[in-house]
Structure formats: structure tokens, C-alpha cells
């Protein structure tokens, strides 16, 4: 790996402080703004529709005005008080939170080991881990289901949550991402800590890990998002309504509440909120994390 990941300061936006021939609002730049604005309107239309519909009363639902004539929070009241929405929300937070913590710890530990240690079998282990990305989830889901059924995991509280979470506790993609990042850390730094008599785990935990915070931030958001949205495995493994996660609960909502578009839109809007908050707070780190790691092989 010889190419250095681009650092934020090197991105074109910052470089343009140097005199460049065209900086005025010329035709190409103007065109870019027009294209981008049209794209944004199209991209955000479904969002706006979802939010505005969630504020419409039942009577207003099918008249196609964009704005609700008399905005009401009744759909939200019903979703929160008359369905299991809050429980599913809490289940999702627990499942996605624990999985993310586990992935951050194990993936950085494996990535660090593969990047910074020299040992027989290193490349083989890396290739084996990466190759699991090609195994379709559908192929694994059937044996997982058979195993979980044999162990009768899904009846009790800790067992059911563990059954939902276990496939995601370590991710091969995260190992790849973290290894890329740890490779850019200078060896001298780790060597210095070694000479000071720090334990190997201490070097990883107290020296290496804090230096890769942007990568951790982007891995964290993608892992959280993936598990917050996870559908296929939770749908299969969850037996009782009280263990449902948000996607499974809302998908099966249709049957339980009838097709009540207002409720569905309110539930969807509420499900977007935590993810959007996390994204708004960490936006810069997330995108810089991806830009920094470069996603290059």
C-alpha cells in the first residue's frame, strides 16, 4: 500500500486558495448548481411527502394537497400509545448499540493485528476473512435458523436478543476498513511505546486506537445503520412480538393496524429521527472517514 489516503486539507476545495484560472460564477459552475438543485428536489421529495402525510388527519389523507390543511399530531399519538412502537424502538437501540460496540472493538483489534504484526499465516487469515463477504446471507440464514431452533434460544429474554445479534458481532468489511487505516500509522510510534514497557494490548488500546478516530466514527455509523435497518435475519429469528425490532415491527404493522397510511407515515418518520440525529452530529467525521480511508484495495 503505497498511496497515501487523501487528507482533508488536500481536497480540491481547500487547494483552490491557489490562483486558478476560473473562480467566478461561470457557466459550468452555474450548471452544476442547477443540476444539483434539481437532484436534491427529486431526492428529498419522498421525505417531505412522508413527513407531511404523517401530519394529515384521516379525512385529509387521500386528497392530494402537498401541505396538510389542518396539521395534527394524532397519528403520532396513536403510534406511540396504541402500538408496541416504543418497545420495538428500544429493542432496535439495544441490538444496534451492542452490535456496534462489539464490531468497533473486535474489528479494530483484528485490523490492527493484521496491519502491524508479522506472523505466519497473516495473509491467509486476511484473505479468508475477506472472502466471507462473498457468502450470501441467504446461505447462512438457513443453518443459523436450524442451530438457533435446536438450542431453543428465542424463548427467553437474553437468548432472544443474542439470537438476533450474533451474526453481526464482527464484520469482515470493518476488518478491511480498519486494516487499511492502521497501515498508515507509523511503526516508530508503537515501537517507542514498546520500549517504554507498555503491554501490547495497552499499545493498541491507548496509542493506536485514539489515532484512528475518524475511521472508527465511519465504521460506527455504518454498523449502527446496518443493524438498525437489518431485516432478513430478525424477521426469521424473532418469534414473539415483544422481541421485534423496529423494521420487523413496522413491516408487520400493516396487518395489525390495517393499512392506515397516517400511522405508517408517522412510524416511519419517528424511525428516521435517531439516525438523522446521529448523522447530523457526526456528518463530518463520517464523510471524512470514508474519504480518508479511501475505500481502496
Amino acid at each position, binding site marked *: 500500500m503505497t498511496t497515501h489516503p487523501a487528507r482533508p486539507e488536500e481536497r480540491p476545495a481547500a487547494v483552490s486558495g491557489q490562483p486558478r484560472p476560473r473562480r467566478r460564477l461561470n457557466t459550468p459552475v452555474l450548471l452544476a448548481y442547477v443540476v444539483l438543485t434539481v437532484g436534491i428536489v427529486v431526492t*428529498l421529495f419522498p421525505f417531505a411527502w*412522508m413527513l407531511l402525510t404523517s401530519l394529515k388527519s384521516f379525512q385529509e389523507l387521500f386528497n392530494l394537497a402537498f401541505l396538510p390543511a389542518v396539521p395534527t399530531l394524532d397519528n403520532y399519538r396513536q403510534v406511540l400509545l396504541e402500538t408496541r412502537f416504543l418497545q420495538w424502538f428500544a429493542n432496535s437501540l439495544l441490538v444496534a448499540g451492542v452490535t456496534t460496540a462489539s464490531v468497533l472493538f473486535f474489528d479494530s483489534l483484528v485490523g490492527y493485528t493484521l496491519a502491524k*504484526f508479522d506472523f505466519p499465516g497473516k495473509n491467509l487469515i486476511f484473505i479468508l476473512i475477506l472472502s466471507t463477504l462473498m457468502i450470501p446471507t441467504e446461505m*447462512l440464514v438457513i443453518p443459523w435458523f436450524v442451530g438457533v431452533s435446536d438450542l431453543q434460544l428465542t424463548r427467553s429474554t437474553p437468548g432472544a436478543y443474542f439470537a438476533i445479534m450474533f451474526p453481526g458481532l*464482527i464484520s469482515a468489511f470493518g476488518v478491511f476498513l480498519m486494516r487499511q487505516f492502521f497501515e498508515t500509522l507509523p511503526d516508530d510510534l508503537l515501537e517507542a511505546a514498546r520500549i517504554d514497557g507498555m503491554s501490547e494490548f495497552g499499545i493498541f488500546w491507548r496509542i493506536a486506537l485514539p489515532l484512528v478516530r475518524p475511521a472508527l466514527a465511519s465504521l460506527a455509523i455504518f454498523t449502527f445503520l446496518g443493524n438498525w*435497518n437489518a431485516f432478513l435475519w430478525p424477521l426469521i429469528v424473532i418469534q414473539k412480538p415483544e422481541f421485534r425490532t423496529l*423494521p420487523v415491527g*413496522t413491516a408487520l404493522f400493516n396487518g395489525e393496524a390495517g393499512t392506515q397510511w397516517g400511522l405508517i407515515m408517522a412510524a416511519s418518520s419517528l424511525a428516521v429521527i435517531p439516525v438523522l440525529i446521529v448523522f447530523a452530529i457526526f456528518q463530518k467525521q463520517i464523510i471524512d472517514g470514508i474519504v480518508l480511508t479511501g475505500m481502496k484495495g
Partner: protein
Amino acid sequence: MTRTAPTSPPRPRRGGSMRRHQARTAYTFLLVPLIFFLIVRFLPTLSALRLSVFDWNILKEQQPFVGLENYERLFADEKFGQSLRNTALYAVIGVPAQIALGLVVALMLNRIQALRGLFRALYFAPYVTPIVAAAWVWQWLFSPQFGPINTFLIWLNIPPQNFLTSPSQALATTAALVVWQNLGFQIVLFLAGLAAIPRSYYEAAEIDGANGTQAFWKITLPLLNPTIVFSVVTGTISYLQLFTQVVNLNFTDQGGPLGSTMTVALYIYQIAFGRYQMGYASAITVVLFVIILAITLIQLRFLTRRYDL
């Protein structure tokens, strides 16, 4: 990639024990993760292979060995054929569409300075929307009776369309949803790729009298090759496993009008968890695995060679 080069004098002397110490530490760190990959990824893969040669039905007492019978059954299964064709179609529509749109938006974002962060964040928003929620909004938007898209078409003097309820339009509409959701991530990938291209290349090209179009074809595109390969390979793998969007756009009849949006993943789900025919479903997953493996290897071979600088 450089191995720990002999840089400092003390190292060669205690090289042997150092290396053994390093290896021991490395294996200790890797122990739990390797057990995880073994139990949660590799053994289930083998287990699926084994299940595929049994008539393994969770509801039956006997699980007899049937050899390759499940695989023979696949050839005669028209619904499997349809799901396979649909899945290929999703990948053929979706992957180029999201790469082309992602590249256009990323290039435009690179041109502007004001509002750049805001635009970037807004384009990323669909990617952070729960898939189930997005599928429902899409269902509403494209509804033939009360959908705003048809209202807009009527306003343009175009006859209203059936979209998700039409066997010929449902797949393309579903693919559009997936492209819409993936676009934000694709844009960020291209922005990362573009940021890695040194400005000096463009300056040199400008001095040589190259115009913007020439610079795009001769510098931008070839140097974006690693990003494009990454997007094509991971994008294809994800389209070949399309499930959540398809299910949630048609939860009642599962697979769209006349099975027109049915994917291999959804078919596997129906066979395994609707009819509990785990053996037959496993045979389909093995075929899907072989297809993914073959396509990935072919793509890596052909795409990485073209512009090797």
C-alpha cells in the same frame, strides 16, 4: 506494503524472540474473532452445502438423503428461472445507474464551493433512511389511484401509469428505489476517489492544452478505476441479494404482480421459511453463492486490467 524493515540496529539481535513474541500476541488477539468467523460464517456455509443434498424439511420426521435431486429440481423450476432473470435485471439496471448518477453528482459537487457540505449531506439522507420506511413512502408515491407521481404525469399530459401494480413496470420502479437509497453512499465513494487524484495532473494537462472533456477521459476516469471496480463488485453483490425493498414494496403478495419483482433471495426465503423446505432452499443458496463467486472473479479480472497505470 513494507514488512517491518531492518531500520534500527538493536532489532536484528533479538529478531528471533521478537518474532515469536509478535506471533504469540497476534494469535491471542485473533483468537476470539477467528472462532467467530469459523462458527458463524465457515461452518454454516459447509452446513448449507450438506443440507442441499437432503430432503430437509423442518416439519417432517425423516430427513432423507437425496443426492443431487434438489439441484435437478431447480432446472425444471420456472419460478426459480424467473427470479434468477429478475435478479440479473436488477443488477444490470441498478449498478450502472447508481454509478453514472453518483459520478455526475460527485463531479458537480467538486465544481462548487458554496453549499457543498449541505448538498453532500442532503444527498446522503436517503442512505440513512430505514429501508422499510422508504419502501412504504415509495408505495404511496407510485400508487396508481392516489399517488402524487401520477398526479404530476397527468399535469404533464402523460397518461397515469400502474408502476408497482404493473408486471412490466414493477421491477424498474423497485430498482429506482434501490438506486435512490444507494446514491448517497456512491457519491461519497466517488468524492473520496476524486480527492485522491493529484491536482498537478490537471494542471499539467491544462498546460498541454487539453480541454475539460479530454481531461475527464484521460485523467479522471482512469484514475477513478479502483473506486469504480469497488463499486461494481460490491454493488453487484448487494443487488444479487436484494430482499428487503422487494418484500416491503409488496408485502401482501410477496414478489410483485405475477412474480415480476421476485428475486432469488425472496424465493429462497419463501421456500425455506414459508414452506420449510430447507434442503431445496439450501440448494438455491449454493447456486447463488457460485454465481456471486463467478461474477466477482470475472469482474475483478476484467475491470482491474483495463487501465493499469
